[in-house]
C-alpha cells in the first residue's frame, strides 16, 4: 500500500460472493445446522482420547526440552504451540478442564517468553493437572466445579508470571 499522504479515502462495496450465496434460500436452518455440527463433533470424539494422549506426550516432550534450555525461544514456542493445541479443542470436545489448565499454562509460557523466570514446579503442577483433567472422573467436569484446583492454578500462574524489572533500562 502506498505511503502517500495524498492517498484518497475510498469507500466502496465489494462484490462479495459469500454474502450473496450465503443468503440464498435453501440453507440448513440454524437449529438443524447446530445439531448436525454437534453430531459431527460427536463422531470425532471416538478418536479424541487417542489424539489427546499423543498431544499430551508431545507437550511433555516439549517441556522436557524446555527444561534443558529454559528461556530459549524455539523450545518455548514448541511447548506453547502444543499447549495451545490442547486449549483450542478441549472444550469443543467436552473437556473444559483441559482447556482451562492448558490456557493457564499457555499464559505462564507466554510470560516466560517476555522474561518471567522458568519455574519447573509451576509447569509440573500444570502437567499433573492436565493428566488429571483427561481422566474419566474429570473429563466432563467444568472449571467451576473444581474451584480449589482452578483458583490454585490461577494463583500459581500469577506468582510465576511476574516479569522482573529490567535494571538496564
Amino acid at each position, binding site marked *: 500500500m502506498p505511503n502517500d499522504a495524498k492517498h484518497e479515502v475510498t469507500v466502496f462495496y465489494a462484490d462479495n460472493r459469500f454474502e450473496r450465496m450465503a443468503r440464498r434460500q435453501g440453507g440448513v436452518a440454524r437449529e438443524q445446522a447446530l445439531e448436525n455440527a454437534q453430531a459431527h463433533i460427536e463422531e470425532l470424539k471416538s478418536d479424541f482420547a487417542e489424539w489427546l494422549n499423543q498431544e499430551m506426550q508431545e507437550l511433555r516432550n516439549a517441556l522436557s526440552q524446555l527444561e534443558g534450555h529454559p528461556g530459549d525461544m524455539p523450545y518455548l514456542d514448541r511447548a506453547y504451540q502444543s499447549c495451545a493445541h490442547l486449549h483450542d479443542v478441549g472444550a*469443543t470436545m467436552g473437556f473444559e478442564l483441559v482447556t482451562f489448565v492448558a490456557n493457564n499454562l499457555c499464559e505462564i509460557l507466554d510470560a516466560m517468553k517476555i522474561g518471567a523466570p522458568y519455574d519447573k514446579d509451576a509447569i509440573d503442577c500444570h502437567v499433573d493437572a492436565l493428566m488429571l483433567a483427561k481422566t474419566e472422573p474429570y473429563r466432563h467436569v467444568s472449571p467451576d466445579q473444581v474451584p480449589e484446583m482452578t483458583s490454585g492454578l490461577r494463583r500459581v500462574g500469577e506468582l510465576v508470571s511476574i516479569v522482573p524489572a529490567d535494571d538496564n533500562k
Partner: protein
Amino acid sequence: MKNPTVNLRDLVILVADPNAYARRITNGILRGFGANKVLEVEQTLSLFQVLSGQKIDILLCDTRLPPHGGLMLTRTIRRNSNNENRTIPILLMSSDTGESTIKNARDAGANIVVAKPMSPKSLYDRLAWIAFNPRPFIDTATYFGPDRRFKIEGYPGGVGRRKGDKQVEVAEEVGPGLAQDDIDNLFSAARKGQPDA
C-alpha cells in the same frame, strides 16, 4: 432478522489452522452447517498456493498460522492490490483473546474474530453476521479492509451477558482474555462514531 439461515452450499471455504485436529473439528462443523467445499491448509505458504489457484469465498484463519500468524496474513491479503481475493471475508480464530490482539485483528482488516475453543453456535452466528450485515470496504493510506465503524444490532442467536474480566494479569501488556461478547464489542467499538470507544 432473528435467526437467519446461512446457506453454505457450493461456497468455497478455506480453513487455515496449524492444528490438524482443530481443522477436522472446524471442517466437521462447517459440513454440519451444509458446506460441501471446505479446503484445509496448515500454513501460510500452502494458503497462498490455494489462493493463487482458485477463488475463495471465505477464509477462516487461526491467528497462530505459521510462520508469521494470521494477523500478518490478513494484512498481506488486504494490502495486495493485485490479489483478487483481497476483499474476501476473513474470520480469524484466536485462542489469544487479549484486547490488543482483538484490536490488532480488527485493524489488520479481519471481518470478525471468533474465540477458540469454538462452539458450533459461536461460529454459525458469526458467519450469519458476516452474511447478513454487509459492510463497505475502506481504502486509505494506512488501512484497507471492512469499515471498522459499524454497529452490531445483535447476533442472530442473541448475545449473552458480558463476563467480567479475569483477575490474572500476565506480564506487562497482555492483559486479561476477553469473552466472545467483549470481542464482538471491540469490533463494534465505533458504534458511536469513535474508533475505540
